[in-house]
């Protein structure tokens, strides 16, 4: 079915949206939800990717990239949002564009109770640090939402996180 195909190919479409927004830098931690997008970006000669040891590094890299004229995206999981809290003061106080794509855990059909506290606190944590949160529950939604978020970030100097619903990512099989 065409809709199933669209659902499966959202990372490909997402890379196109990011490129159209001028994104040339990608920071990421290992993440199953972002695995396909990470691979696509690593194989894209126009993208520079950085693998991080902790998510907060990506916040500082994004600020430095913008200082030098480059737009970037940070790919992370909801649990990693907690690692970013103090570093989020840097884009907030400097009005550095920040675009975060957050794959959610701790919500739809989560099997691991350890993912629940941070997953449930993700949006409140981001908002407490001044980040605008937008959320996508379907692939169609996600493409439009990332287009919006990229405009907010790179044209309006905002810090924006798009939460990618666990329902969109699919139930984790174990």
């Amino acid at each position, binding site marked *: 079915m065409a809709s199933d195909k669209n659902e499966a190919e959202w990372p490909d479409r997402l890379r196109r949206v990011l490129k159209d927004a001028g994104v040339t830098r990608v920071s990421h931690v290992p993440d199953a939800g972002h695995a396909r997008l990470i691979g696509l970006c690593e194989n894209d000669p126009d993208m520079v990717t*950085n693998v991080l040891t902790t998510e907060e590094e990506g916040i500082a890299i994004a*600020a430095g990239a913008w200082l030098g004229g480059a737009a970037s995206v940070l790919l992370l999981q909801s649990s990693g949002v907690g690692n970013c809290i103090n570093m989020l003061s840097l884009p907030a106080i400097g009005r550095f564009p920040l675009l975060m794509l957050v794959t959610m855990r701790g919500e739809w059909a989560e099997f691991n109770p350890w993912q629940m506290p941070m997953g449930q606190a993700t949006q409140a944590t981001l908002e407490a640090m001044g980040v605008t949160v937008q959320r996508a529950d379907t692939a169609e939604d996600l493409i439009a939402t990332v287009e919006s978020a990229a405009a907010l970030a790179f044209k309006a100097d905002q810090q924006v996180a798009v939460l990618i619903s666990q329902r969109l990512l699919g139930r984790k099989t174990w």
Partner: protein
Amino acid sequence: MVSPVPLDRRAAVAALLAGRGDLLVVAGLGSPAYDLHAAGDHDANFYLWGAMGGAALMGLGLAQARPERPVLVLTGDGEALMGLGGLATIAIAAPGNLTIAVIDNGHFGETGMQRSHTGRGLDLAAVAAACGFAEAGTVTDMAGVEALRARLRGPAEGPRLCVLKVEACNLPRSLPARDAVYLKNRFRAALGLGVN
């Protein structure tokens, strides 16, 4: 063996920046920012007043965005220790135009001079070397600082980290602007980049 006399941090930073040319500089919070400011304010200086652990990574993002320009990060031992994982990230990214100078007084100077990990024996240059930095060393005299300055602007096989062993003392503060939006726009304008 007689221990070497620690460097004067202000003299060391001023020497590193002498004839800075097209050098882009990011300074971590606390004394490194004051040292950079004391050496002379400059449009291509970005001073952090917070975001501890972020200076070296900000330098990485900047170095990757501007591969044709040499980038210097000035950071303290305390900040470098907080961002140890960042050294791994920088080593793997392997920019050939990024130098991290750790102004190491072996203490957390901003918060009451408690002895830091380096003051208790941790060797940051060895950590950087283990991560895979192209160059990693420790400097204890002005000749070493001069030698680093001479290499700063040339390309390298990968990132450099140099620990500058300095005297633990609280110098009079030389305070840069705290307005990060101003600092950002000034820096970007120096690179010919516009304001949104």
